[in-house]
């Protein structure tokens, strides 16, 4: 990790207050940082807190029902303390986000051109004509055929892959320093997914932006990320450079995940399964949150929450039994 990361999250905790008075611990003790030009994969299953973390960075969580503590530092700002006006200036400008559902994240009653131009005018100003030229240029960059014509079309005229490309073009409109992509290819067919991933790699190489890629697909992570953080039940359980995570994972949950995916490059008679359920996040367990499902559990695991322990440079795991190699040798 370089001396001053572009974005640095320290001890982020997010709690939701439900109507019935129940408090859900959605995110706990999350520390993350991403350097300029790097891609961080944020991996985990439904409800692990990966999307909530990204919404917190963007300042998009509902204020009335959410309790956030910790710090999110982005280029000198603390995003959690920043006034709304500052956030509005940053969002869509230096911080941009792509959502999973390109169907619902575009406004159906405006042309795609209007929506891209709005972003450019809001943050960059200038004339409408120059903004339109820039919008066409952006559509060309994301490989939309005949962008001069497509710019005046409404979202419903475009296929899913095209819409996702429009979303990417919009996110890139002001050359963001940080791009958050939340499951950007999950709704797409594999051949389109390959095109979009290729595009993201291209754009990263061209602009040097940092990317946080949120996904449940370990294949996508292996293809595009430099570093990976695995989340489970609101916590980061392991963080490592991508090669290390896939060759020598240090948290049992990561081992379970890697063993449970059917692979094209490997034949397994039986896939690994992770038995049991995710703990109830209204009353998270006192000790390790994975303890109830962990085959390597010890009594000590259930007593106190394990700290993130350093295994090797850049590789940390929230497991007191790490390094795991010792368990099988």
């Amino acid at each position, binding site marked *: 990790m370089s001396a001053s990361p572009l974005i640095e999250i320290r001890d982020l905790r997010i709690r939701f207050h439900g109507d019935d008075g129940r408090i859900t611990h959605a995110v706990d003790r999350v520390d993350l940082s991403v350097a300029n030009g790097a891609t961080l994969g944020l991996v985990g*299953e*439904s409800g692990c807190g990966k999307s909530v973390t990204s919404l917190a960075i963007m300042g998009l969580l509902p204020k009335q029902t959410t309790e956030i503590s910790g710090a999110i530092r982005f280029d000198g700002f603390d995003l959690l303390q920043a006034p709304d006006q500052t956030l509005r200036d940053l969002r869509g400008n230096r911080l941009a986000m792509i959502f999973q559902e390109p169907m619902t994240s575009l406004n159906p009653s405006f042309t795609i051109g209007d929506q891209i131009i709005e972003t450019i005018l809001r943050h960059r100003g200038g004339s409408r004509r120059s903004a339109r030229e820039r919008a066409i240029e952006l559509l060309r960059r994301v490989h939309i055929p005949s962008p001069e014509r497509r710019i005046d079309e409404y979202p419903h005229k475009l*296929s899913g*892959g*095209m819409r996702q490309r429009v979303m990417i073009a919009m996110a890139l409109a002001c050359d963001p320093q940080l791009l958050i992509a939340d499951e950007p290819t999950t709704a797409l*067919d*594999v*051949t*389109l*997914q*390959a*095109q979009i991933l*290729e595009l993201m790699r291209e754009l990263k190489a061209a602009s040097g932006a940092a990317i946080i890629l949120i996904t*449940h*697909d*370990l*294949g*996508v*992570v*292996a*293809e595009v990320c430099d570093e990976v953080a695995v989340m489970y039940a609101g916590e980061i359980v392991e963080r490592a450079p*991508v*090669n290390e995570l*896939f*060759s*020598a*994972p240090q948290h*049992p949950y990561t*081992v*379970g*995940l*890697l*063993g*449970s*995916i*059917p*692979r*094209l*490059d*490997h*034949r*397994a008679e*039986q*896939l*690994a*399964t*992770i*038995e*049991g*359920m995710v703990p*109830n996040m209204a009353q998270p367990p006192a000790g390790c949150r994975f303890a*109830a*499902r962990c*085959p*390597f559990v010890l009594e000590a695991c259930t007593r106190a929450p394990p700290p993130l322990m350093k295994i090797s440079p850049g590789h940390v795991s929230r497991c007191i039994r790490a390094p*795991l*190699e010792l*368990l*099988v*040798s």
Partner: protein
Amino acid sequence: MALLEVEGLVKHFVARRSPFGRALAHVKAVDGVSFSLEAGKTLALVGESGCGKSTISRLVLRLIEPDAGTVRFNGRDLLSLDAGALRKFRREAQIIFQDPYASLNPRMTVGQILTEPLALHDLVPPAQRRDRVAEILRLVGLEPRLERRYPHEFSGGQRQRIAIARALAVEPKLIICDEPVSALDVSIRSQILNLLRELQDRLGLAYIFVSHDLAVVKHIADRVAVMNLGCIVEEADADALFAQPRHPYSRALLSAIPLPQPHAKRTKVVLQGEIPSALNPPAGCRFHTRCPFVIDRCRTEAPALTADGAGHATACHRVNELPSADTILPATAGFTPALAKLVAAFSRKTEGATLPGVGIQGARPTTT
């Protein structure tokens, strides 16, 4: 004789009508598809959205009527069956859907959901139905006491187990699995895939497995049919197809799948352009607009699906001229030795500790 033989199946949906009701445009969802399936085996239908794979699964069950073609189940022509005979056939062929949140009636308890097929087909005398329900629940790894719960009390994986249990209740010979694990998280997905394999071994079931996920298909299928825009473009034994995909579309699909192996050395075939609409499929070979190996002949003449001596069938004019497909999937095994050991230890311990799928949301997991 094969359990299921499908011959020249065609289904065109009307997409637009004139004010007088005349059909103006058709979606050619399935356009001349033939395949067969042996008892106890798994045939996977793979392809992207709109390729017709789900339509085939409904045609095979006669949930919708084909425009042409025949479906023979155990030698009997399904399309000639009257209502009574069709109901009897439904005992032998069942379906599991993708979304276990939408496919279970929220107002019925699990017990009622599983008793209904027993009562409809009058399979088990009323007095013994509860015992049979308990037995089926155990078969899919759920505890019999969960019988009184409603679907909303279960997680996605458990609901899919209930949907499987419902299909198994009538002791079918064939189950159509339409994207059965696509809506599930990865760790749950592996449980359901293991369960489907185990049930097949135990009960001799045949599956038609409809999926867009080729890694899942490789894990579960004996034979694979790759579909593009209503037609099968390649059909082969799973091992043969994944070792040497022949059709350019199969190659593109395989090379598009991200491997959970950083810096894997492989050739990428990234297709350009969009998937053409099934409303107006391209003339000639339906893949020619995206095919990197296209020649003039492909634009005018549709290639036939022709099999070689080993039963590997491909529909491509240039099948013998294409470059080797060796590097589409890297040959090196995925796990490092250390990781393989860890995964094995992880699996051994979890299997020994608890039975799969017991416990329920909000309740303590119980050991049996």
